[in-house]
């Protein structure tokens, strides 16, 4: 494997004595597509927060493009090529859909407030935002207030903002939640298209069918620990993975 884009070394964090993420290590190569699954409360969102710097681990390291970023701010990591979408969508509700994406597209202009003060032009960012909105299927919604969009479109807006950062690797936290089957399939195809353009993807999802279809490697988390790691179909056949789920979804998958 070529040098990993993202490497996690023995990451661990606990809240009030409960280990939410416990000794997690894996590495993602450039252009790869990883799925991350696990039952509710397994620690998936916490892991994404550790990778993105919203949380600092109790122990372990995060490497982004070969550089240790464990103690870097989220803003710095984003500048180095990381992007993420939130499980609970967080648009700037009082801004238009377009402005949400323009702001992301202009992230190099806003690094330093004083330099940002000397810059007015938004032309290039607008063009880029428009094309990204087309790519995620939000063409036509540009002038709407972000706060007025239905959930399905907000999920797309999250992805549009992430893409506008021109990222090397994108962490997606349940981008399909709340979407119906056809919307979910459409969304996954869109994400696969992004991956095909060279962007590395780490996808957290409960929709097993879609995550298995799209990922090239699957990691299973339970109680903060990695209990499965490998080619999706093989992983889903492992006894402990099935036991962790004990649910219909795996049965359905095995049957189908």
């Amino acid at each position: 494997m070529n040098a990993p884009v993202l490497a996690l070394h023995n990451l661990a964090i606990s809240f009030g004595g409960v280990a939410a993420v416990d000794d997690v290590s894996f590495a993602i190569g450039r252009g790869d597509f990883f799925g991350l699954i696990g039952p509710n409360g397994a620690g998936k969102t916490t892991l994404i927060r550790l990778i993105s710097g919203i949380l600092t681990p109790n122990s372990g390291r995060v490497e982004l493009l070969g550089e240790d970023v464990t103690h870097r701010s989220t803003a710095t990591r984003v500048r180095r090529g990381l992007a993420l979408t939130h499980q609970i969508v967080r648009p700037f509700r009082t801004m238009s859909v377009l402005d949400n994406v323009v702001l992301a597209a202009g992230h190099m202009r806003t690094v330093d407030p004083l330099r940002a003060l000397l810059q007015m032009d938004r032309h290039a960012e607008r063009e880029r935002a428009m094309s990204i909105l087309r790519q995620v299927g939000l063409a036509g919604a540009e002038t709407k207030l972000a706060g007025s969009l239905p959930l399905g479109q907000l999920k797309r807006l999250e992805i549009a903002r992430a893409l506008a950062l021109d990222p090397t690797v994108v962490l997606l936290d349940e981008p399909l939640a709340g979407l119906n089957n056809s919307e979910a399939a459409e969304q996954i195809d869109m994400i696969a298209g992004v991956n095909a353009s060279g962007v590395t993807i780490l996808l957290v999802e409960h929709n097993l069918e879609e995550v298995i279809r799209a990922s090239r490697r699957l990691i299973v988390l339970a109680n903060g620990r990695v209990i499965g790691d490998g080619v999706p179909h093989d992983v889903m056949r492992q006894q402990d993975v099935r036991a962790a789920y004990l649910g219909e979804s795996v049965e359905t998958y095995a049957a189908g």
Partner: protein
Amino acid sequence: MSAYTISLLSIVGINVILAVSLNIISGFCGQISLGHGAFYGAGAYAAALVAIATRNLPLALIAGMLVGSVLGLIVGFASLRVRSDFLAVTTIGINFLFTGFVRKQGWLGAEMGISSIPASGLGASGNMIMIELFAAATIALSLYVNASWMGFAFRAVAEDEDAAATLAINGISYKLVAFALGTALAGLAGALYAYFTQFINVDAFDFITSVMLMAMVVIGGIGSTVGVAIAAIVLTLLPETFRFINEYRLLVFGGLLVLFISLAPGGLASLFHGTRTRLRR
């Protein structure tokens, strides 16, 4: 123009600078400050001392801005540690700390204030014109800031700092810049006030003043430069027209503040435009 009109217009100009500068901190960047009077006062006292020592107008104005913004940066650093609702309480504390401190300092005239401030040499109307020019410049600067990428990022930090961080926007540096800029302008207003009255007393910079300024920001429409400037003008003229209001300043401005926050959170700007998208123009 009568002396009364000149003095009224001077106060209007000073209040416009104060309200528009508070709007940069609280409206643009979302950092609720109820202690703007302290930075105003710090600028006034700094300018008064420099004016007495040097009789140099530009130097005194610069001193006012510098001292205002240094104090602002210190409070800005404090704001990084506290949630926004605590920030409101912290800044109230700063205001009381400031007035309490000044009252006990002999070199600042204590309760008596500073009365021997030299004239600017511009005359009353010259002074007034200088104040209006600075007020116009402050409005222009505020409009420019809002249209720049800095204003764009302010809006993101004000709405959701964590989401802003995921767009590589460092909320900390933006908050500090907002405080430094807004309080420098408050310091400038203080310096202009010192030259205008040639006599300053700490009562002019108390918590009631801060509440009145916040009322101007909220009533004008949080984030709207033009709305806030208009509110500053109206709320300055109102107590002059209806003298009795002066007796009940805290009651009236506090009441207006609560009324607008609960009934028209977008302020006058949103009542006129109807939509929230235009709120920031």
